[in-house]
Every structure is written in structure tokens, then in C-alpha cells.
């Protein structure tokens, strides 16, 4: 269940995972983008961690909004406004219905699609968020489902983002933003927040 503490714990675990895997994220981005996704995300989560540790919070909304602003202002590039929009939408939703994780993640997913105009199958992080929302709704989110969603971006041809410039050459590589979104949901499980 999402509480102030569990949300912070979740985001801290996410930060750790991004930091640990930033070179891998950049490597994925080097193949079909511009090679900075790891650096972008690491910069973002570092700022998020700092913002979260410098303040005390009395609502999940508050936590998510603080995290959103940090990510938004420090990631930059394409993933900055996407993660920023996701967390802002999640914060809003948490204000209305704080206990339902599925509807909160659904709001985040909608926020990303509203901002980035990508559809499932376009080889973007949407391809992880959408299946995760569906799994949550059916109460069966698992590490395997997340892993599969990330892996399933490999054969896709990119239609949005930098990778789309590659056309067919984008096929055969995992989408970096999907990988970092995968980390977000893996840590949701690892932190026992489900």
C-alpha cells in the first residue's frame, strides 16, 4: 500500500537502481538514441533524493509532487517532461484516491501519453506503463510481467522520440526509457509497496 513512508522508500530504491545501472541505460540509448539516458536519469534521481530528504511530508501527494518537480527540472531531454508529467498526474490522483495504486499509476501513464502523444507499440516507455497498469488492475503485477514488457520493446520499430530517426534500424534494441520505467516498477515490487 502507498503511504508517505513506502512511497519515499520506493523512490529511494528507484534512485539506487538507476544510479547502479546508469551506464547500461546510456548504452541502450547509444544504440538507438543519443546515449544520455543514463546520465539524464541519474541527474534526475539524485536531485529527487535530495529533495525528498530535505523536507518532511504529510501526504503522498506531497511526496509525489516534490519528486515530480525534481525530476522535471533536472532530467531534461525527452524523459524529463515525461517522468515529470507522470508524477505530477500521479500526485493529483493521489490527492483524490490515495489508496488505489492502480488508478495512481494509470494517471501517470495517461500523463505520459498526453505529454508525448505516443501509442503502445511506438517503442517508448508507454510500452511498459500500459501493461503495468493492466496488470495492477488485475492484481497480478510481477517482476516477470515487467521484464517481459521491457523485453517486448526490442523487436519494435520506433515511431516516437529520437530512435524514430533510425527507422528500421531501431528494430532489435531495447528502448532505454522502457528500461528505466521497468526499474521504477521493479522497485515498487522490491519495496513491498504493492
Amino acid at each position, binding site marked *: 500500500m502507498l503511504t508517505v513512508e513506502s512511497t519515499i522508500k520506493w523512490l529511494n530504491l528507484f534512485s539506487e537502481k538507476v544510479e547502479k545501472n546508469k551506464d547500461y541505460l546510456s548504452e541502450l540509448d547509444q544504440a538507438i538514441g543519443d*546515449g544520455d539516458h543514463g546520465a539524464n536519469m541519474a541527474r534526475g534521481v539524485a536531485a529527487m533524493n535530495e529533495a525528498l530528504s530535505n523536507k518532511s511530508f504529510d501526504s503522498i501527494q506531497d511526496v509525489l509532487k516534490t519528486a515530480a518537480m525534481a525530476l522535471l*527540472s533536472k532530467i531534461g531531454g525527452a524523459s524529463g517532461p515525461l517522468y*515529470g508529467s507522470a508524477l505530477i498526474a500521479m500526485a493529483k490522483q493521489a490527492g483524490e484516491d490515495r489508496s488505489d495504486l492502480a488508478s495512481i499509476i494509470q494517471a501517470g501513464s495517461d500523463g505520459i501519453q498526453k505529454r508525448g502523444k505516443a501509442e503502445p507499440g511506438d517503442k517508448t516507455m508507454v510500452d511498459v506503463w500500459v501493461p503495468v497498469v493492466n496488470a495492477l488492475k488485475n492484481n497480478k503485477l510481477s517482476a516477470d510481467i515487467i521484464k517481459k514488457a521491457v523485453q517486448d520493446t526490442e523487436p519494435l520499430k520506433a515511431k*516516437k522520440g529520437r530512435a524514430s530517426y533510425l527507422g528500421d534500424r531501431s528494430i532489435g534494441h531495447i528502448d532505454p526509457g522502457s528500461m528505466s520505467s521497468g526499474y521504477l516498477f521493479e522497485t515498487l515490487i522490491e519495496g513491498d509497496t504493492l
Partner: protein
Amino acid sequence: MKKIINKPEDVVDQMIDGLIFGSEDLIERIPGTNVILNKQLSKGKVALVSGGGSGHEPTHAGFVGPGMLAAAVCGQVFTSPAPDQILEAIKQADQGAGVLLVIKNYSGDIMNFEMAEELAAMDEIEVDHIVVDDDIAVEDSTYTAGRRGVAGTILVHKIIGAAAESGLSLKELKALADQVIPSIKTIGVALSAGTVPESGKPGFELEDNEMEYGVGIHGEPGYRREPIKPSREIAEELTDQLRKAFQWKAGDCYGILVNGLGATPLMEQYIFANDVAQLLKSEQIELPFRKIGSYMTSLDMAGLSLTLIQLKDDHWLDWLNAPARTTAW
């Protein structure tokens, strides 16, 4: 990687300070941000704000000053700046007549600038934006991110900047840009990749005798790799692409920008310009506006790009030639 820098993570910050040091009479840095602001903003006129990832120097900050940009927002190298920085630029640039954002067509830039625009609207600042997508190397399609914004952007800065200075409203400027931007097309060729300081490796690898047509200003892949050709043949290829895109006829009137990508010296740019000039002359294209130099670079990428703008309106030429006081125009 051999570069004259300090810590890779500090390049943007220190570069901005160096730029300001060189042009303190013209520009200043908004404290605590990576925003460069024109010191002599024109009261009551629309303010032009641009920006994007760094690594394209002198773009965009070098074009801040009377007659061009009111402010430029510098992101990390090849990474769009975040909305809060853009918002700060909008706030400080606004002189009561609204702000027009000039965005290069990259998903990241579009999203960050649009978010800033939404935030500014909440602060009741009138803001609109235009998107430059002049790189014809990439197939245009509404189903993809579309064409990239490259060197032609500086012609947009110049024309819209001069038009804003002449007193056009935000609406009028936006309408003008809707005419101007589709009239600008660019195509480039790379001989070697630039190296992002934080990555330390070239963005792509070319053989010692290879070049690649259509590479983007962040090292995005182009449309063809082949052994290096004489300047004249490169000029033919790029001119062919532009001819196809413009479908020009004898007597048409264009402006031309030959742009170095960072590590290619003026000697080569001039030789290439000469070859293009001869080709266009033989097709009886008029070229009343001409510019040669490294204006939209890609770090230390070797290569150059060729931009043409069809001058559909006499005002455009006047605005291109209007005085501007900036570091780099």
C-alpha cells in the same frame, strides 16, 4: 577524447561564464540558471526566446541581443533544458507584448518548452511557440517525430527577431513564422562525429575515407555513407536534395547559409560554398543573401551543412539584413 575542458559535468556552466565574459556589454546570465538574457530588451515588443541542448555553439546564446533573441536557455550537452529554466527565461524576457518560443523539432525540446509555456500561461504571460524542422535528411511524417531542426534555425532567429524589433505582434510573428519556416531547408554531411564530454567517445564511427550524408546535429544517422568525394560532388549531392525538396525554377530567389559543423575550418567551407555558388548560378537561382561560417555546430564534428531559404517576400531579405547586435551573427 582530447578537449580543453575541466570536469565534463561542468562544461555548460563554465562555457556560459566564458561566453558572458566575452560579451558582457550585450548579455548577462540570469543568476542560478543557464539562461542568457539580452541586456537591452525592447520595451513593449514581443520577446523571442529559444534554447535547447548545448554543443551547438554559437547557437543559441550567441544570437541573444538587440534584433534577435531576448533570451536563450542552455540545456546540458545535447539535452533539452528543463521547463523551470525556460519559464525563468520567459518571465525575464517578457516586455509586456508576449513571448514567442523558437523550438527545434526534437521530442525533448517540444515537451519541455510546451510545459514551460503551460506554466507561463498560469502566470498570465502571453506565450506562443514555433517549431523549426528544416532538416530534409529525414523523411517527414506525421506518424513520427518528423524533420529535425538544424542550421536553418538561425535564419528564423534573424528574420523573426528583426520582425519583432520592427513591432509585429505575437500573432503576426506566429503567422510570419508559419510562412518562413516551411521555406527553409537544410541538408548536411559529416566527416567525423563530435564527442559528448560526458560520454568521452565519438557519437559514431566513420572510416578514415568515409563521409555520411544527412547526419543530424546530435550525430543522428544520415541517409548514406560513402567514400569521401571532392567538394564539387558533395555540393552536387546536397544541391540535388534541395532541388528535389524546393522544386525551384530559374529566376527564383533564395538566401544561402553554408554552415561548418564545428571542426571543419573556413577554408573548406569557402571551397564548398564556391562549388554550390557555381551550381546554383548555372540554374539561374538568385542569391541576394549569403552567409558562411560555423553557426550551428555539433561539438567537434567535422562536416558542414547547406541551408537555403526561399525568399518569398521582400521583407524577409530586409529582416535578414537588418542590424543585429549579438555575439555571433
